[in-house]
């Protein structure tokens, strides 16, 4: 599907795209992400592929946003706190119509705004916060959720964190503060792909029981299949929950999801695919060569 045809369907988003359609979009996004990594030499492919379904579910079903008015004041906010998955966000924002996909195709090595981590909001429509150093997105999201309360706006804030990112102390500072302030309009989604840059996340830091940790910090928490559009959309629709608790969605995912030879292989945290690997990946994804 071309970006243009996605664009023409934007009107149908309010009523909600069916899951099969979302899954199709996720396949498109994965194909583009793999191609982009090859073309631009951008790493973190495994981390991008593990969160594609979360991004598609949010941008095509859950977020109350209008790509033609990216700075609309009462919009929902999404922060990619795991900023190293920027290539995934870039593709999803393009698919959603924040900017033409051609902008990404024209990516030049020198002077591009498409860094390996998201730029500041003034540089690219759809970006809510520049991230890249882990542990920053959630506190900023807390500020945005707090702002909505102060301004009496109904908007919601979603922050996507990696499991490795949960090593950062600032995440838990933010968790305690959000719970104390009863920020029921705030959600964390943890892309729990069980890996961090150089090791199994559980072996580096004792993360488990991750959902219980969030509960112990005063959040409502649940665990979902992070590749199930139905489960993701259903859970996101529960925000805000009536109890005034921030919500943690621990999304069980597979690093490198969607391309068999990348799945659960942490080499793809840094590896760049070859021409042959791009072709093989696209074939697996059911995309034209």
């Amino acid at each position: 599907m071309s970006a243009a045809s996605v664009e023409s369907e934007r009107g149908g988003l309010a009523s909600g795209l069916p899951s099969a359609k979302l899954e199709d979009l996720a396949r498109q996004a994965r194909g583009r992400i793999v191609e982009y990594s090859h073309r631009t030499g951008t790493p973190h492919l495994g981390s991008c592929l593990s969160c594609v379904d979360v991004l598609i579910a949010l941008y095509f079903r859950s977020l109350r946003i209008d790509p033609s008015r990216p700075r609309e004041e009462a919009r929902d906010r999404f922060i990619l706190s795991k900023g190293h998955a920027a290539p995934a966000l870039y593709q999803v924002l393009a698919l959603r119509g924040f900017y033409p996909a051609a902008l990404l195709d024209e990516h030049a090595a020198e002077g591009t705004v498409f860094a390996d981590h998201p730029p500041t909001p003034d540089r690219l429509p759809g970006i809510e916060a520049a991230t890249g150093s882990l542990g920053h997105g959630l506190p900023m999201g807390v500020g945005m959720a707090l702002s909505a309360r102060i301004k009496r706006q109904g908007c919601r804030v979603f922050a996507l964190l990696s499991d490795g990112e949960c090593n950062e102390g600032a995440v838990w500072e933010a968790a305690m503060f959000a719970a104390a302030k009863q920020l029921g309009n705030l959600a964390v989604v943890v892309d729990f792909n069980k890996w961090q840059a150089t090791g199994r996340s559980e072996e580096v830091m004792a993360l488990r029981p991750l959902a219980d940790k969030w509960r112990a910090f005063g959040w409502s928490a649940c665990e979902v299949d992070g590749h199930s559009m139905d489960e993701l959309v259903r859970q996101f629709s529960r925000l805000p929950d009536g109890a005034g608790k921030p919500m943690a969605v621990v999304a069980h995912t597979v690093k490198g999801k969607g391309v068999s030879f990348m799945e659960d292989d942490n080499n793809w945290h840094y590896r760049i695919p070859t021409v042959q690997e791009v072709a093989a990946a696209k074939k697996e994804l059911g995309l034209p060569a």
Partner: protein
Amino acid sequence: MRNAFAEEITSLGADDPRVVLLSGDIGNRLFDEFKQRAQDRFYNCGVAEANMMGVAAGLALCGLRPVVYTITPFATTRCLEQIRVDVCYHKAPVLIVGTGAGLSYAQLGPTHHSCEDLAILRTLPGMTVLAPCDAMELRLCVRAALEHDGPVYLRIGKKGEPLVHQQAPEFSIGKAITVRAGTDVCMIGTGNIMPVLLEAADTLEERGVSARVESFHTVKPLDEERLHVLFEVFAMVAVAEEHSRIGGLAGGIAEWLARQECVTGRMLSFGTADEFMHEVGPQAWARRKYGLTAEDIATTVLERLGRPSRAIRQ
């Protein structure tokens, strides 16, 4: 300065729906009136400064004007990356207020001293750095900072500092204030060292040396226009600050001087040494330790000017 800050932020912020006051679990009674008047815009963020700074950036990105208040090291180095990334990179209009400037909390030990903050914060792109010399300048700084469309670091003392300005001077960010006219030597100060500099000027006057005194309340951006004039008029410019001699106001001026094509000049720098102060005492004692007294400054200035200095000690 602390009380003046609380009064000013309350009078400016309590009725301004953009202003949100965040405190790192200090200043409990200080903001009672603000809390009373704007309950939904005061947050004690606890002992979690990294989060507090990120929250401030998030608020600012939504159009609010957060003011972050805590003891200087915790408002600066403790959460430096959040200041750099969340605040400065986003050009977020956050007002960061560090209380206990320089040696104000000398007695509390090196964890609470802040003699590196100007140097560190000054290097952050887009950051404005303010160090008012008294309660009057502080109030003017707060007003200007809340109108400034970008991040501001405001370094304030403790309480009970003497007033330098008897009435409100003309004020804008980046414009130095001439506190005392003089013709033989120029002394530039920033922040709470200013009363000491004025006393040093008195001492110099007694020795027949007329000293001009400038308050550089804005450490960044420097008042380059004023610097041009000062270096042109005076053979020697002395810079004093309750801060390390590395990277503060004197450092900034020296960097500026190095970039000039036609300006030359002699500089003197008064500040703290490159060390942690393991033995503590009152602020006045700490100033003596680092040669930051009126007599020390006057003596050194006289020596460098080639004038006899012994007489002043008589």
